[in-house]
């Protein structure tokens, strides 16, 4: 009936309207362009930046070793921090008051003191506890070792970063766990799962959607916070740059080298986070976000803009 009538009339032509003009946007673009040009001119012409020196040290052995140390510290501290944080979060939610209080105290202490103080603390740890041993509490030891040989600079850096990270991660994981609907736990319990199984198979995978974005933030912060380790003399990226500029006084070019590497690493992290979020988002939305490659392919195939 009505549809028949409309069909015989055919489809009206597509709307082609003249868009609204935005003159002030063009003014803004022009102003920004001038500032950018001035900035680039300064970068290129300022002799203090000394680009040849930057190029000389960008891939130098000592810098690359520093980059590797930064990556190693970030990955290890994050891995330990995530495990500690998850344990602390599950402990925080335990019905046992002693267990949850211990987790609370842990978070309270490590979030309540500056990271730099914690780093220095672990560095000088051996000066007040000289020996570590395993044995009967207050009784004989089976094994003991000098703290200095056990806690090297690297270990103290790792301890400081990961214990601090664990405290922050525990709050992130806890928020994630609390975000999962209680009906999920009930359904899983009704199927005969134990509390651990419910956590591992049902609650945590769903909590991940809430946990991943802030964790990406944490990895980013961690990568940059490793620079604090330079204060205790471990040759990560910043310390490596310092070693060089302390010798040749080319401070600015070497800081540019460090900035270049930090930016490169944080950018790589952003890409990684996109794919992880996409993975844990499955099932939570009707359609999965497209990867950049898929977007480009669609764009080429359809020749149209993809939202």
């Amino acid at each position, binding site marked *: 009936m009505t549809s028949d009538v409309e069909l015989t009339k055919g489809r009206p032509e597509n709307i082609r309207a003249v868009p609204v003009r935005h003159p002030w946007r063009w003014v803004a673009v022009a102003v920004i362009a001038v500032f950018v040009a001035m900035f680039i001119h300064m970068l290129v012409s300022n002799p203090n930046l000394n680009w040849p020196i930057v190029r000389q040290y960008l891939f130098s052995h000592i810098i690359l070793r520093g980059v590797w140390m930064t990556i190693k510290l970030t990955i290890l501290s994050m891995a330990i921090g995530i495990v500690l944080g998850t344990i602390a979060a599950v402990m925080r939610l335990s019905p046992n008051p002693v267990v949850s209080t211990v987790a609370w105290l842990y978070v309270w202490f490590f979030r309540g003191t500056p990271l730099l103080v914690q780093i220095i603390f672990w560095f000088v740890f051996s000066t007040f506890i000289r020996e570590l041993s395993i044995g009967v509490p207050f009784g004989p030891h089976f094994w003991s070792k000098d703290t200095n040989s056990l806690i090297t600079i690297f270990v103290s850096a790792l301890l400081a970063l990961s214990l601090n990270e664990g405290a922050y991660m525990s709050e992130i994981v806890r928020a994630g766990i609390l975000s999962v609907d209680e009906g999920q736990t009930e*359904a899983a319990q009704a199927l005969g799962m134990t509390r651990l199984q419910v956590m591992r198979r049902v609650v945590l995978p769903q909590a991940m959607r809430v946990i991943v974005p802030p964790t990406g933030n944490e990895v980013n912060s961690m990568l940059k916070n490793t620079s604090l380790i330079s204060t205790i003399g471990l040759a990560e990226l910043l310390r490596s740059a310092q070693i060089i500029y302390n010798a040749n006084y080319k401070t600015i070019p070497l800081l540019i080298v460090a900035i270049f590497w930090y930016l490169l690493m944080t950018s790589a992290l952003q890409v990684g986070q996109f794919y992880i979020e996409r993975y844990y988002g499955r*099932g939570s939305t009707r359609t999965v976000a497209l990867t950049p490659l898929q977007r480009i392919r669609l764009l080429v195939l359809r020749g149209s803009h993809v939202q």
Partner: protein
Amino acid sequence: MVDAQAIHKNFGANEVLKGIDFQVVPGQVVCLLGPSGSGKSTFLRCINHLEKINAGRLYVDGELVGYLENGGKLYELSEKVVARKRTEIGMVFQHFNLFPHMTALGNIVEAPCRVKGEPKEEVHARAHDLLAKVGLADKAKAYPRQLSGGQQQRVAIARALAMRPKLMLFDEPTSALDPELVGDVLAVMRDLAKSGMTMIVVTHEIGFAREVADTVVFMDGGVVVESGPPSEVISNPQHQRTKTFLSQVL
């Protein structure tokens, strides 16, 4: 199958079950009717120990739920034992509670594989059979979000059945569904009842209760007001409260 004796349950000072006596024999289909807040759902959840009762005795298959009685003393059962007993009782929820990060098939095979440790191929074959039985053979790979409410609820029924339960509990399985989707779910439940499954169904679907139930139990204010075959309780209620309720929902 289920033997409840003077069940009392309170949340804080609020007593929601005030002495429920209730028996279900194997193969029986029981529908629990009553206004919201009458304690039907709470009672259902007590049966698989999702809620702890405060007084009375509740037996499933001859065994006390949640406790061990020895020499006049009650001992709480460990989490593991409670979990193992739950594997024999299937439960279907008002809001489906499918696991959103798993496909329909994943939802069904999860518990038989992980909890019972049954061989994967066998469970998968059974899961496909169950999906076909609830009319969703082509939805094995769909995530819950991609299914309609009625389809989700049928997957949830298949998930519960995959554990080969002796008893099925339904907690208002059609209350969250659009009216045109209710029929598919009720049809699945009707088939299940015909196959001889013992079922306890909390529902507002009077028509379903009249047609499928062997026994209808009307609850109000935490007590059983009356119970009996649907021909008596629904068609010829004796108590004023039952009459009032039925006149409101019919």
